[in-house]
């Protein structure tokens, strides 16, 4: 009232209300907050009761260990891990990458210690833009990589009947049958089937073959003077594996051996791809001048991790048919197995 009176008196009096004290900006929890919480709880109770009246929880046939449904799928929040299993080493896909992701989430506040931009949505200058770009980038890249790694599959048969990523490497010749040693890289094809390029990264360790001249090391009688990929590199003994020492036999590596082609195809290539693509988007956005603070980097990474998590879940839910083949959602048919059709 006083301010209005001053304002009415004329422009000479500056109409600046004094800054409000902290206490005046506060409201009472009862009723202002408790009321909102109560309404939210009631709405959710009603919604889920109605939902549960109309939609029943699934209950299939009794569990039968000898009848495997095809495809069998994990719960949706683990389908992304199941999806990753198709593309890389199972230890990385199933355990190490999710652990790293959770560890990354946990250490965010210890790396981004600035107190700025807290308590409001998207506090830094370009954070909305960064979030949207990172989300779109992660969705496109994840889905693109999934399609790329299923090179002999074609998601859109009606529109683009012949476009497959396998064609990019079809110039690599087919391996001549019956010979073990080839100089130039070649791809082993199944007998009777047409020649395919590299259909997925696993092919690099399985179908790709080439040899390079290699001196006979230490006069090894089994060496033929050539190093064959993948045959000669698939069984490298690990140091200190099964060593007789100290307290009996040391099974340090549980009798494992190094499979170099497998490591390259299932670990090195996928992980380098992930790291490279993550650094790429951060670098691009940095050069554009939109990454200003450490928090901006974490916004990109957090958004990208969540978006690819969601994308891979959706791919696993809606694009994986029998034998985990990549197919459009409308073509998915679940084979329940040859067991009893009716519950006992």
């Amino acid at each position: 009232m006083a301010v209005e009176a001053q304002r009415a008196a004329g422009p000479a009096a500056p109409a600046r209300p004094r800054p409000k004290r902290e206490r005046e900006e506060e409201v009472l929890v009862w009723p202002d907050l408790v009321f909102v919480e109560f309404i939210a709880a009631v709405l959710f109770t009603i919604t889920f009761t109605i939902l549960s009246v109309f939609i029943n929880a699934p209950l299939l046939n009794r569990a039968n260990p000898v009848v495997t449904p095809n495809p069998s799928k994990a719960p949706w929040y683990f389908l992304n891990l199941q999806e990753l299993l198709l593309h890389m080493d199972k230890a990385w896909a199933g355990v190490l990458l999710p652990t790293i992701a959770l560890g990354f989430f946990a250490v965010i506040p210890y790396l981004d210690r600035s107190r700025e931009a807290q308590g409001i949505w998207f506090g830094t200058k370009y954070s909305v833009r960064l979030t949207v770009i990172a989300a779109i980038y992660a969705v496109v890249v994840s889905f693109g990589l999934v399609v790329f790694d299923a090179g002999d599959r074609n998601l859109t048969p009606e529109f683009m009947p012949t476009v497959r990523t396998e064609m990019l490497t079809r110039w690599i010749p087919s391996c001549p049958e019956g010979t073990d040693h080839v100089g130039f890289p070649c791809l082993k094809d199944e007998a009777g089937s047409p020649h395919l390029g590299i259909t997925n990264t696993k092919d690099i360790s399985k179908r790709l073959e080439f040899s390079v001249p290699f001196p006979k090391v230490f006069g090894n009688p089994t060496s033929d003077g050539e190093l064959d990929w993948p045959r000669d590199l698939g069984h490298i003994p690990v140091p200190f594996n099964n060593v007789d020492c100290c307290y009996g036999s040391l099974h340090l590596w549980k009798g494992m051996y190094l499979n170099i082609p497998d490591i390259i195809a299932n670990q090195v290539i996928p992980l380098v791809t992930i790291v490279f693509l993550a650094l790429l988007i951060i670098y691009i956005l940095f050069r554009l001048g939109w990454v200003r603070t450490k928090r901006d980097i974490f916004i990109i990474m957090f958004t990208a991790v969540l978006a690819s998590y969601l994308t891979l879940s959706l791919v696993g839910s809606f694009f994986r048919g029998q034998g985990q083949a990549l197919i459009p959602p409308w073509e998915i048919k679940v084979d329940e197995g040859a067991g009893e059709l009716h519950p006992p």
Partner: protein
Amino acid sequence: MAVTEEPGKPRNWSERIGVLQDRIYDKVFHNYVWQSIFRSGYPNTPRNQMLVVATNVFLHLHPTRIHRTHVKITHTYCLGGLTFFMFLILTVTGVLLMFYYVPDVNRAYQDIAALETNVKFGLLMRNIHRWTAHAMVILVFLHMMRVFYTGAYKPPREFNWVVGVILLVLTLVLSFTGYLLPWDQLALWAVTVGHGIGGSAPYFGDETQLVVFGGYEVGPNTLIRFYTLHVIALPLLAAIFMAVHFWRIRRDGGMARPL
């Protein structure tokens, strides 16, 4: 000035009813027993409104006053509170489901089937349990996104964010252990996929399968293990971490505010 009448005999019926109402109100709310339960008066004055929050064990998770911006629905969308509310619904419906369920491979499936057909509201309870479980997983993710994008993990709330990440893992594991219990094909093979993922742990794969799943394939041991984890171990653990989570919100100065 108007002359105030002395309180005397009621002159008409409406006044008589008014007097009666006052007496009944007095008898119900001002008697010895009621006041032994509810210390503060009816929350229609600021003093009583603060008292009711401060003296009630359920409400005292809140402060008595809160900043204006935090009551706005678009600031939090109630996501954390709703996650907790899902946990409460799951506890209640879960206890009801436990009455009819035996975690034995020969009985589990029949118990669920009987629950759906023979038990009054059994199907409804199972449906609510299932859908709220999915909702809790989704809400936990959304809550984490809200906290991240509002920068609410920043000092001094670093540790509470870590507790939140632990609660995310607990929620996922709780949901996953519950997935097996109906012992149908969906449950068995979904958990078999998880069993394979657990077995792919480098160096400790076999041990993980033995300890967590109780064997090299999903079977009776897995069922009893998952049941025990699902109904007592994990909810207890989650409740402890939730207590820390809520406590730390208050200790760290309530919800994050712009500087």
